[in-house]
């Protein structure tokens, strides 16, 4: 998918995906580091601060006005984690110069992006005290607001319980106590550490003069003494021990069931398309076993779905149900899993799953953000297969391969969020 990659400094690469399909150009600047409990939240807060304003555009208002001037350009903070990595940085998209009524915007957009990253707003050699406090309280609001979305909250809780002793339970957003304790100097240190030590991957999707953009970024890195960190390997829990059960009571009208499983496999083990094909068959699509049997045939719920993770080696099944139906739902879900393990997959089910997954892979080419996410993700997995290659492999997969993958799945955790007056 990548047209050209240019190494511009030690551990810093700019990757270009050239395409004429879109009316916009998309840019991303990604700092990549190991997830650590004592620093992940600082990185999260750092990108919030960088996108709050820069030296040249020293307020949210000034920055937004510039973006309006650049034809509804966007600059968004980017924070995510995958496997052992924390990714934080900036994502931007701008109209291609062909559509901006004869006012070219691409050069100015790159300047703006560089300003945000290399020229932050500082006072007395640290980030602005006011902005730091603003962003801290905003982040605390976000942490507290986790409960507003009961589905996501339940899912996070299940993963937290399941991965209690693994780095996957670390919240890169931090805790209220952690964020409260942040001082300006800590952020300033985190900023320089990121520029010096993080691996950096820059992506450009669209149609631009990539060499010109690369030399612009390079001129900034020439002034930085880079010492890229070494990221340690981590152990993956391949098999669950005893099943953990946890129930929580909140004032909700619908119960949320989340079941966490260990799959035993990650993308690094190869053949990850089999894991994804398993998921399609089991609970990843409207023609999956969970949707057809648990929702449609038993009318137990409106949502019942599963997802498998690439690098962490687990799977979650989520369902919104009446609290009294908890055990019935668990049994129904496990029964379907057992069916897959026994290769009880009809030709129609297999065929639908393959087509649906292929559709999903090929859709990636229709969005510059998806292409960016795919390539970065694959870069971090040392697996450079394109969506087209994966789609081809999927079409050749067999029921036996799916059953083989399913046999490695073990139930780890059952989490249930229910209402106060719910019985069951």
């Amino acid at each position: 998918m990548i047209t050209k990659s240019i190494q511009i400094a030690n551990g810093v690469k700019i990757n270009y995906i050239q395409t004429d399909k879109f009316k916009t150009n998309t840019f991303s600047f990604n700092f990549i580091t190991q997830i650590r409990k004592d620093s992940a939240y600082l990185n999260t807060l750092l990108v919030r601060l960088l996108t709050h304003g820069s030296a040249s555009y020293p307020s949210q208002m000034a920055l937004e006005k510039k973006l309006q001037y650049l034809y509804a350009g966007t600059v968004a903070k980017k924070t995510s984690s995958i496997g052992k990595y924390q990714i934080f940085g900036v994502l931007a998209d701008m109209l291609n110069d062909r559509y901006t009524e004869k006012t070219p915007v691409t050069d100015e957009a790159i300047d703006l992006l560089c300003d945000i990253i290399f020229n932050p707003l500082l006072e007395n050699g640290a980030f602005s005290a006011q902005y730091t406090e603003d962003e801290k309280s905003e982040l605390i609001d976000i942490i507290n607001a986790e409960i507003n979305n009961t589905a996501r909250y339940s899912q996070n809780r299940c993963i937290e319980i399941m991965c209690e002793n693994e780095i996957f339970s670390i919240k890169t957003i931090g805790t209220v106590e952690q964020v409260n304790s942040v001082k300006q100097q800590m952020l300033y240190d985190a900023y320089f550490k990121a520029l010096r030590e993080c691996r950096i991957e820059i992506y450009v999707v669209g149609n631009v003069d990539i060499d010109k953009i690369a030399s612009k970024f390079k001129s900034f890195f020439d002034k930085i003494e880079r010492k890229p960190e070494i990221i340690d390997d981590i152990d993956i829990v391949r098999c669950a021990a005893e099943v953990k059960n946890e129930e929580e009571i909140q004032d909700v009208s619908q119960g949320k069931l989340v079941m966490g499983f260990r799959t035993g496999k990650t993308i690094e083990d190869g053949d990850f398309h089999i894991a994804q094909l398993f998921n399609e068959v089991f609970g990843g699509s409207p023609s999956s076993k969970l949707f057809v049997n648990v929702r449609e045939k038993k009318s137990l719920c409106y949502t019942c779905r599963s997802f498998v993770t690439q690098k962490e080696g687990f799977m979650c099944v989520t369902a919104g149900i009446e609290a009294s139906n908890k055990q019935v739902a668990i049994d129904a879900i496990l029964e379907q899993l057992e069916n897959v393990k026994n290769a009880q997959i009809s030709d129609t089910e297999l065929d639908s799953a393959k087509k649906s997954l292929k559709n999903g892979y090929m859709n990636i080419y229709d969005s510059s953000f998806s292409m960016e996410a795919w390539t970065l993700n694959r870069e971090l997995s040392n697996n450079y297969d394109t969506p087209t290659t994966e789609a081809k492999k999927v079409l050749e997969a067999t029921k036996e391969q799916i059953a083989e993958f399913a046999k490695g799945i073990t139930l780890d955790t059952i989490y249930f969020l229910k209402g106060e007056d719910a019985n069951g």
Partner: protein
Amino acid sequence: MAEIITKENKMLGEKYYTFDHKSGLKVYVFPKQLTSSYALFTTKYGSIDNKFKLEGDEDFTCVPDGIAHFLEHKMFECENGEDAFELFAKTGASANAYTSNARTAYLFSTTDNFYESLEYLLDFVTHPYFTEQTVQKEQGIIGQELRMYDDHPGSRLERGLLEALYKHNKVRIDVGGTIESIAKITAEVLYKCYYTFYNLRNMVLAVCGDIDVNEVEKICDKMLKEAPKQTIIRDYECENEPKEVYKKRSTCSLAVSKPILSIGIKDSNIPSDPSERAKKFYAIQILNEMLYSRTAELYNTLYDKKLISHLLDSYFEQDEFYSFNVVSTESSNPEAVYEHFVDFIEKTKKNGLDKESFELAKRTIYALYIKSFDSTEEIAENIVTNYLEGTDIFDIPEIISSITYDYTTELFNDFYKEEYYAMSVVNPLSKESEE
């Protein structure tokens, strides 16, 4: 053969084809060189259409709330016991449907087998099959869907706001209805709604992707029978709707960390001319960008006073029979946000809108329109919206460019009056409901 009309926009580098199929269906084909293609089959029938008759009928039929949405669910069940999702599973298409206040839409997106999928779409939406038994089963699933939305702060906020803004207008009815109202639905009444509103003359098909218009016409020929000519008379009972809001406040409590609020502005001056209505629509978008984005004084004042830490989200919804604008955010003190909002609007009226902000906001709205052409889904949705609103997707740049500062100022002064404002609040559970 129908006459195929081609429309082109050179600036965008895009074109589309449209024809009136002999069955009575309006069809749009928008070629786009992307990997996936998208099809959208829409009927002008939503939750507000609960009292209607056909021309020539003596009496109006009144149906239970939530029936349009219920019908949407039931359409997926085919007579042979198959689920329509299973049909699409054969082609790999990803299918879905949604119901809103004024329309019901069935859609799929796919990277392969587009024409075969299109046949399935046209087939299942034109073949209703309901029995008392299947209706009962659906009451269980939709019951869980409604409960899910009961726990959803955003849905509760919006419902509360519409109930405060409107006294009679049917837009205040929840799209899904209630557990009680859907319990009254029978197979017979579903058929009645189906044959009234799923007449091809009340529908539109928009497809976008690497698609050939002649192939689409052939599939329409194969799948669609000529629809009977009929005129639907809808009674929205909105004559008695006052211009002012019904209630100033609507509150409820839910598991949220901080109160969330929506300020609604009720609007009764809806132009009957489609291009005037579109012009007003985009002018309100420009105003929303000027008044509520991060460049706006209101946002920055609220932020500096620590009344908000979240964005001010805004959206404007306009139909022939209702129109309202919404500004939402999160705040520990919703009443203080409301006061600042009122003061800010009054101050802006006195000082006049800023000319530079107007130009930048107008540029933003124009750019968002251009960006929408990067997605087959957005293109198809916009084609349908424009068709139902009586405008053309390619007319929009001209409409936006015709919006002047003076026009916007006048609109702003008429649109914003305190008697048109209401606020909906969802409080955290510890705070007792004020109702």
